[in-house]
Each structure stands twice: as C-alpha cells, then as structure tokens.
C-alpha cells in the first residue's frame, strides 16, 4: 500500500511544506477551522440530497482540511493518459454506432455490445455533432505506487462531483490563504468557462449564431441538484427542468417570461431513459416529448449523447486498453486494473475459487452498490455471491482487492492515514481538449475502508496540482 505523504520514512517532496505546516498546527486551530469550514459549506448550501420522505434529509459531504497534492510531473502523466482515453472512448462510441470495425476485427465480442442494455439501437447510424458522444468524462483513478496511476472506472454519462472540486478549493483558500501564497498551486476555477467553450464547439447542424446552452436537471430532489444549479450559475446558462422546455416543429424551445426562446445545446444531467417519453420511458415526466426528434433533425444537441453510457459499462472497461490500441495505435498511458470477466468460463472459475481475494462488481451497478469485497465478507456472504455469479456470470466482473494509496486526514485533531481515489473531469469538444489541473479526491473516512463513495461514508479533499 502506497503512502503518498511518507515513503520510506521520509516525506515525499510534493508534501514537504504542507506536512510540516500540518504538524505544527495547534490542535484547537484545527478544530476551529474544521467548524468554520463546515459552516461555510452549510451556508453556501453545498449539500447532496438523500432520498427520503422529507426534504430535511440534506447532508453535507464531509470535507477534510488536509490537501491531496500531486507534483507537476505526476499530473502531466495523468493528463496524457486521460486525454488518450477520452479520445479513444469517443472514437469507440462513434465506431460501434456506425461501422463497428472493432467488432468485425474481433477485438470485442459482438454480444458484449449488441446485447448490452446500454447500447441504444436508436442511435445506430446517427451522426452526432462533431462525432463527440461523451464530452464530459470523469475518470476514477487510483494510485498503487510511486509510478503507477491506474484507471478504476470511466464515467461517460453524467459524472458528478465537479462542483466539489471547485468549492473545496474556495473553502481552502479562505481557510488557509497563507498556504496559497507560499506554494504554487494550479487554479481550478476555469472549469465552468472551459465547459461552456467545449459545449459551444458542439453546436448542432442547424444552429445559427451563438449557441444557446441549458442544463437539464431532474429537479431539486435529485442528489446532485446543488451541482446542477452551481454549474448553471457559474456558466451563466439557464438551469431547466423538462417542463421548462417544449418542442414545436422539431425545434426545441425554452419557456421564458418573454415567450419561447430557441435553444441549441442541452447539457443533460438526467439519464437516457428519461430524456423523451416518446422514445424511452413512456410515463416519464422528467423529459421533453419530441426532443429526440429535434436532436435527430439537427436542431438541438444533447450532451452526452444517448447511448454514450456504453463506454463506461464495466464489461467494456475491461477492453479499454485494446480500445486505445485499436483506435490510436498507442499503448495506454494509464493502465487498467487487472479484471476477470465472469462470462469467460475459465476466468469465472478462477473468480469462484478465489473469491476471498477479490472484489466482485455487478457490471451495471454503480456507486459502490452491488459489490463484494472478498476479504471482508462472511462465509455466508461469499456463498450468496458464488450462487449469484454462477446464475448470471455475464453480470459480474472481479478485480484484485485494490491497494488504494493513503493520504492523512485530520481525525479529531491529529493526522491519520486514509485511502483515497482521484477523479479528474476532462472535457472534449470539436478539436479541443481541456482539463483543469485539479480533481476531486474522495476519501474513505473509516480507517482501513476502501469505499470512498459519498453515499457510503466517504468524504472529500481539495486536490492540489503544483506548478513547475
């Protein structure tokens, strides 16, 4: 297990200043700052909703004051890897929805694509604007040693958490301005303007003039609603719900106090199946009837494209290194985690026999649900999972129990190591790639826990990329 701060009993160079600073902080200062930070978050209203009967069930994601730090050279590698991956993912999506060369070349089994619920047959043969299906990708990365960063998961649909990246920085700058004066830390606040820029480069065919962007949210009960309104505000665009939009003669409009206003680009934060009740879920009220028609006829762009989720399917993930090689002819900069595919009889056998050493995931699950950590499971749980896998092997993959690196948190007032991951948010548009030098660091607050998801007791940290 890699300790990012202290390696071989010396402090690693990116953490030099911060570690000394943290060690020297008086205990009551830490406690005071923690309360201050929490109050700031509360005041701003950075919350995520928990589905419950009552609206009061809004929670703060716990924020830890000790920053996660990456050196300039480490970041360069991550950036190269993510860029490569984002391009490959979009090339892959374009291919499987058109000629499907990668399947013809027998690099990916056809069943994995065609029988995959995330493969949307309504998208086949349709040319999305500028061939970009997934302009916003959140890549979950873990660090396993001094050199290696590995990708745990790609999030190509509607990755969330970017608001925390920006807010965490805001809070840290207010709490500890002196650190920002003495260290050269890359800024993250240009993300919203980058996002506008990227989306504008993806205007639909029939858009004339400056493209009008909206963010489509399922509404204030959604767990990421805060993020939706946060982004809309910083991007200077309207935050709309399905009922704020309508389609007439294939054109999408927004209802305003000055009458209908034509819109060109929908950055949607609702799932595919809710987009248009005429095409997907018939009884959904979240979407806009006719918006797919508007999309298909070139009046509006929907980002990400319906069916883009295919690329972050866990079964497709296992092929990502091959996908990168196939489309770019390059070796992947960021490696995958070794993964066993249970649909393969041999690999499945290995998984069943070594369950206590593995992490098993459902192919279509997310957020840390439907997951088994072999080493922590009881005999009974192991048996239940064995049966589950045998019954439906295609629905499972397995990975070794991960060695997530550690960074300390302030536990009460002293430092204590915890496991972390890293989620940078990359943006890919028409002949453009943007990545702010920063990311969301998620941290498991329970000692020795490997689950960093906020819905299951995870917290967040500000993530610093040092300038050269």
């Amino acid at each position, binding site marked *: 297990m890699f300790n990012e701060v202290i390696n071989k009993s010396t402090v690693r160079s990116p953490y030099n200043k911060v570690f000394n600073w943290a060690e020297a902080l008086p205990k009551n200062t830490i406690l005071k700052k923690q309360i201050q930070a929490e109050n700031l978050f509360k005041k701003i209203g950075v919350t995520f909703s928990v589905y419950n009967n009552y*609206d009061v069930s809004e929670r703060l994601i716990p924020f830890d004051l000790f920053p996660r730090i990456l050196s300039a050279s480490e970041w360069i590698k991550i950036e190269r890897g993510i860029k490569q991956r984002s391009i490959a993912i979009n090339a892959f999506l374009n291919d499987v929805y058109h000629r499907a060369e990668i399947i013809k070349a027998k690099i990916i089994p056809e069943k994995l694509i065609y029988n995959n619920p995330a493969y949307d047959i309504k998208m086949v043969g349709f040319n999305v604007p500028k061939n970009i299906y997934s302009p916003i990708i959140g890549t979950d990365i873990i660090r396993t040693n001094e050199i290696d960063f590995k990708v745990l998961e790609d999030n190509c649909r509607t990755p969330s958490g970017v608001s925390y990246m920006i807010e965490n920085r805001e809070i840290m700058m207010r709490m500890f301005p002196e650190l920002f004066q003495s260290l050269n830390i890359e800024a993250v606040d240009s993300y919203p303007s980058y996002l506008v820029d990227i989306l504008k480069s993806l205007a639909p065919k029939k858009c004339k003039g400056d493209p009008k962007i909206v963010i489509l949210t399922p509404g204030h009960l959604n767990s990421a609603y805060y993020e939706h309104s946060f982004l809309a505000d910083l991007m200077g665009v309207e935050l709309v719900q399905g009922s704020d939009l309508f389609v007439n003669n294939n054109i999408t409009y927004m209802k*305003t*106090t000055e009458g209908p206003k034509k819109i060109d680009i929908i950055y949607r934060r609702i799932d595919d199946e809710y987009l248009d009740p005429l095409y997907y879920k018939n009884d959904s009220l979240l979407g806009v009837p006719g918006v797919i028609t508007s999309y298909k006829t070139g009046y509006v762009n929907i980002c990400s494209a319906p069916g883009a989720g295919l690329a972050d399917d866990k079964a497709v993930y296992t092929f990502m290194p091959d996908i990168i090689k196939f489309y770019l002819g390059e070796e992947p900069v960021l490696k995958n985690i070794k993964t066993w595919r249970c649909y393969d009889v041999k690999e499945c056998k290995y998984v069943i026999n070594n369950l206590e050493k593995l992490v098993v995931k459902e192919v279509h699950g997310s957020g840390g649900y439907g997951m088994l950590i072999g080493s922590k499971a009881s005999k009974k749980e192991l048996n239940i999972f064995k049966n589950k896998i045998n019954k439906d092997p295609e629905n499972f993959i397995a990975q070794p129990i991960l060695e997530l690196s550690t960074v300390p948190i302030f536990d009460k007032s002293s430092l204590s190591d915890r496991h972390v991951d890293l989620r940078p948010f990359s943006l890919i548009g028409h002949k453009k790639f943007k990545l702010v030098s920063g990311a969301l660091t998620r941290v498991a607050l329970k000692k020795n826990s490997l689950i960093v998801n906020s819905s299951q007791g995870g917290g967040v940290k500000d993530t610093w990329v040092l300038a050269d």
Partner: protein
Amino acid sequence: MLSRTAENLYWTARYLERADSIVRLLEVAYRISLIPNTKEGYDNEWESILATSGIKNEYLSIYKEIKKEKIEFFLLFDDRNSSSVKNCITSARENIKMVRTAVTLEVWNAVNSFFYSYFDLTKKKYYTKDLPEIIDLVKRNVNLIKGTIINTQLLNDGFDFLILGNYFERADFTARIIDVKYFILLPSTSLIGTQIDNFQWSLMLRSVSSYRAFKWAYGNSEIDYIKIIDFLILNSKCPRSLFFSVEKISYHLKRLKNHYKENKNFPSKIENVFRKLKKLSVNDILDEGLHEFLTTFIKDISTVYSDLEKKYFLGS
C-alpha cells in the same frame, strides 16, 4: 428569464406573506384570549380567522369543534392544512430552492435559516403558551427576508416578481379579512357607539397590524367605520390597504412591461382597478355595498393574476 424562475420567485414571496398574515391573525386571537369575559367575541374571532384563510370547512372536517389549541395547531403546524404556517414556509423554501441562483446568497440564507428554525419547533410538542414566541419568530424572519430582498437583490425582473407575489397575497388577504367582518363595518343603528363596536373595530385594525398606524393617521379621534374603511381600502399611506397593494402591483407590472419592451399602449386591467380606487370615496363604496365592492375587487385581482400567469409563467 425562465418562466418557471419567475413563477418560483413569485410564489416564494407569496407564501412568505401568507405565513406572516396568518401569524398576525393569531396574534389578535391571542390578545383576545387575554381579555376576560370575551367568550363570544373570542369564538367569533377564531371563526373569522378560519373563514379569512378560507379553511373553515377543512378545519371542521378534521376537528369537528372550534377550540383554541386545536385551531392554533391547525394554523401553525398541521400538515393537513395546506395554508398552515409550516406548509407555507416549506413551500416558500421549495420554490426558492429551485431558483437558488436567481436570488442572492443572503436571501437564500435568510429563507433557509428560517426554514430550519421553524422546523426545530415542529420537532417539539406544541403548547399554547409558546404561541407568542412563535408569532415573534415568524414575523421577525419574514421581515428579515423582505429586508434582505430589498437590500441585496438586483432590481431586475426577478425582483419585480418577488414584490408582485408579496402584494398579490396582501391585496387578497386584506380584502378577505374586511369581507369576513364587513357586517361590523356597516352602519347598524342598534350598535353604533357601543363598547362592542369599538372593541370589534380595534380588533379589525389589529388583525392587519394597523391599530397603531391608524392612530398615527387619524390622531386620537374616535374610531368609526368610515375611517376604518377609508384606512384599509383607500389610504395610500397604510401599507396594508388595498390601495397600497394595488399601487405596488401596478408599479411593478409597469416595470416588467418596460423591462420586456412590451407595447405600452396596451391597456392593462390593473390600471383600471387602480384608476377606480383613486376616484372612490367611502360613501361610493357604501353605496355600491361593501360586500359587493370587495367581491368585485377580489375577482378583479384574480383576473389580473391570470393575465400575469398567462403572459409570464406559461411561457408559450
């Protein structure tokens, strides 16, 4: 501005004003309960509170009897009462939450903190002795929010929708409260000049928090129904009068028209209402019949609202 944003802003303000009006009614009732031997007046007062809020039937279908504690609870906390203070505050916050970025952080904070402090109250059992404190909490917070709006909001179209919500609610509420009690404002030979009249009239003024203002406006002369009608309907300085609300509505609708560069020559309903009020005297109102006048007024205001809704909130 997005139609829904305008609508959410409007309803935020409207619900806050409603919560405020309800606790002001409760304040009067509380006052009466402190005066001995007013059993009858007290029962009347409770009934008129329910009638004003338009929830008398709702209440009776649940509680069967007019009882002080039950009415207080019904008005303050009962989920089954769509206009309970609790529901008003929840709705106000729900509305503003959906358009959080259309208001300043300070306005959002003011509404949000109000919501949380009121919710703390709902966790405890309600005792009638807590009433004054609750009334005070609501009044203080609503005032704080309104002040924050005026102090921090950009004076754009969103501001107009907030103010409009406030005054549509107030116009409606004041008209209703006068209507519910219109019988005590009629010249009826048997009661004129008696204790009961004076008492009822002062209650009437207090229920719209205008007792002191009335004294300021008319000096220490005797209260009489002519003055009250004049004060609550036609007075341009009384912030609770119909005239005042209509003037505000008219002003902010005009601002919207300018803001959206609409055709100015197009006559609007509110102008007619306002023009009529400006020309009226108390005697005109009494000639028309107070009840008839108020019925027409409430209908007019609701037509103005429908036009507003159609034009700005439906957006197509």
